[in-house]
């Protein structure tokens, strides 16, 4: 008999993975999904950080092709990076259960966009689960593996910030089905997606989805109805279920746990049973559009509720069709680069030089804040290099010469390498300068390891990729390593010299993150002790 625990959604998913025998947890850190693999590792599960989400999913596919239960985790934008393998693994299917988890961030607590990853379920043609709290996150994780193995199809697991980071009471259980033993079964037609094999595979995928729609209609526990009145009905999923329960105590609520393919028969009966029916959902009007397309008479939300998170108050307003302007919550103190942060000196210099700074995703994006105000673009992981090269190619010489790329060490491992390839291959006439801010950690997401730190996800020793060796081998003209905080004048002079030349240069600005310093020392001491034994 298990005891109740108070767990975050992320922790509950990790616990479920342990309880149902997941052999491989792989992903790339990204708020709010990061803690899943960390907690899974703490519990004794095998977790590893991949250099990026595409590689993570590919590793996950290989593991699931080998009949091992596999969890792949990432934040919402990570699924864009992993979209290439995603669409085709939908065709191949897998032998072992494959659950692909991506965490959306409505309201953008710490993201660059608020894309709605439910769209991927339709686009790729994959079943999708959406838990509404930690208990559901636990239960549906196990269910997702069962469905994945029964239909030999990857399952999308869509969670949001509030589910990831809210703690609720969770009761564990013993899963009904045990995982199989890893082995590889040759099935060329099923796993080699040349056109001749992919054509029937696509038909097979659509057949599976038709069956899954029936499964969803027939699974009473995947669509729960809270009957509380006949006048108003609410169709909802995920965290919006909780807000709706509080916001409309008189309304009947249809709570969907598997949102693709939809249980249209169940939904249709519910719509018929109430006088007025409204869809309550965060993000895109995704459920609303599908239900309207199915010919159901339902109401949706005014456009203003597409933006940001929902809350009890916003659901009340949404149900009343209230489109009056919302009072913005008072602005708190914005985040800033920490006192003593090694990035500070770099941005002082770039500001004073009047550089056009092509930035990237990480703590150093805060270089955009005063007193630095030293960032001009930031789009996605790795874009600092490509975007800057585009500018260098078309801008007049005086402006082109001011363009600098700024990218962190973990982001460089994630998607900076291909940018360097383009810099060497399509060399701009004025050359270019890439600053790699190496603080020895993935700082913004909470100090995770990566291929350049020399430690694995659990902080034990690992082979280390040396950034300067890699870029030198790629054919960059000048590669320097310097600590700008310790040698500010030298750093300033070096940047000025590189920008004045027509060469392509990389400067690795190396100094550990001030928050990571103590931890890194602890890991190293511990690893040295272990090594001595």
């Amino acid at each position, binding site marked *: 008999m298990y005891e109740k625990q108070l767990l975050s959604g992320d922790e509950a998913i990790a616990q479920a993975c342990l309880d149902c025998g997941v052999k491989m947890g792989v992903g790339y850190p990204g708020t709010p999904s990061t803690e899943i693999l960390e907690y899974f590792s703490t519990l004794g599960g095998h977790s590893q950080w991949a250099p990026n989400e595409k590689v993570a999913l590919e590793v996950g596919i290989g593991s699931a092709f080998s009949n091992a239960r596999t969890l792949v985790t990432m934040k919402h934008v990570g699924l864009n990076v992993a979209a290439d393998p995603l669409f085709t693994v939908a065709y191949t299917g897998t032998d072992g259960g494959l659950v692909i988890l991506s965490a959306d961030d409505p309201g953008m607590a710490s993201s660059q966009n608020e894309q709605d990853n439910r769209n991927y379920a339709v686009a790729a043609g994959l079943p999708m689960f959406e838990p509404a709290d930690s208990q559901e996150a636990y239960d549906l994780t196990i269910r997702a593996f069962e469905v994945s193995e029964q239909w030999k199809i990857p399952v999308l697991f869509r969670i949001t910030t509030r589910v990831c980071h809210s*703690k609720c009471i969770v009761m564990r259980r013993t899963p009904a089905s045990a995982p199989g033993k890893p082995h590889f079964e040759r099935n060329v037609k099923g796993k080699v997606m040349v056109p001749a094999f992919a054509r029937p595979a696509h038909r097979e995928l659509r057949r599976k989805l038709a069956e899954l729609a029936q499964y969803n209609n027939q699974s009473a526990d995947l669509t729960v109805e809270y009957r509380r009145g006949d006048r108003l009905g609410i169709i909802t999923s995920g965290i919006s279920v909780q807000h709706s329960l509080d916001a409309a105590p008189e309304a009947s609520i249809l709570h969907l746990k598997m949102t693709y393919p939809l249980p249209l028969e169940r939904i249709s009966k519910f719509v018929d049973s109430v006088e007025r029916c409204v869809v309550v959902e965060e993000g895109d009007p995704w459920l609303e559009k599908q239900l309207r397309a199915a010919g159901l008479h339902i109401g949706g939300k005014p456009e203003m509720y597409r933006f940001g998170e929902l809350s*009890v108050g916003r659901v009340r307003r949404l149900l009343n069709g209230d489109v009056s302007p919302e009072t913005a919550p008072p602005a708190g103190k914005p985040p800033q680069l920490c006192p003593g942060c090694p990035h500070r000196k770099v941005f002082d210099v770039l500001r004073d030089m009047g550089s056009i700074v092509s930035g990237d995703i990480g703590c150093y994006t805060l270089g955009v804040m005063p007193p630095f105000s030293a960032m001009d673009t930031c789009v996605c992981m790795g874009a600092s290099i490509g975007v800057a090269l585009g500018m260098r190619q078309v801008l007049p010489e005086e402006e082109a010469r001011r363009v600098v790329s700024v990218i962190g060490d973990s982001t460089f491992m994630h998607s900076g390498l291909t940018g360097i390839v383009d810099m060497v291959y399509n060399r701009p006439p004025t050359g270019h300068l890439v600053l790699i801010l190496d603080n020895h950690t993935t700082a913004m997401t909470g100090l995770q390891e990566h291929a350049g730190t020399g430690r694995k996800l659990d902080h034990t020793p690992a082979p280390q990729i040396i950034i300067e060796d890699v870029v030198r081998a790629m054919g960059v003209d000048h590669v320097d390593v310097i600590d700008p905080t310790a040698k500010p004048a030298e750093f300033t002079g070096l940047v000025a010299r590189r920008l004045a030349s027509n060469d392509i240069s990389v400067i690795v600005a190396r100094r550990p993150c001030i928050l990571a310093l103590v931890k890194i020392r602890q890991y190293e001491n511990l690893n040295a002790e272990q090594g001595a034994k």
Partner: protein
Amino acid sequence: MNQNVINVVFAGLGGQGVLKASDILAEVAFAAGLDVKKSEVHGMSQRGGSVSSDVRYGGKVASPMVPECEADYLVVLDETQVPVNEGRLKEGGCLIAPSMIDISRLQNPKSLNVALLGALSARLEFPRDWWIEVVKSSLPAKLHEMNIAAFDLGVESMK
């Protein structure tokens, strides 16, 4: 135990122990056998920005977020964050702020979060023993004595 849902909002700046304080309250309510949910947003807040965390407990809790203007208690760890968050209190709700405690009597300013929990505990129905037990299980042993003293200072401040 009262089954009505009680709403508590914790607010402060990154690094002050806002999340730890809300974790401790959630665990105490959990130990009382109540339904409990706790919600927060982390990420960029660890760079010294504003942080807040919501705890709701009672017979049955649905949304993990305290609805607008419905907080029964607002515990603020930094005076600058009072004006930012006081709008979240319901009418007649209770504000607990650092100014209510003689901070000079804290052995270490880092235990302010636990001192404010002590002050909050004076208004809630959970016995002191439960709080102390959770404080101990949430913090390393070498910090126990200092934090228990801070907790009791908070309790005393509300008398």
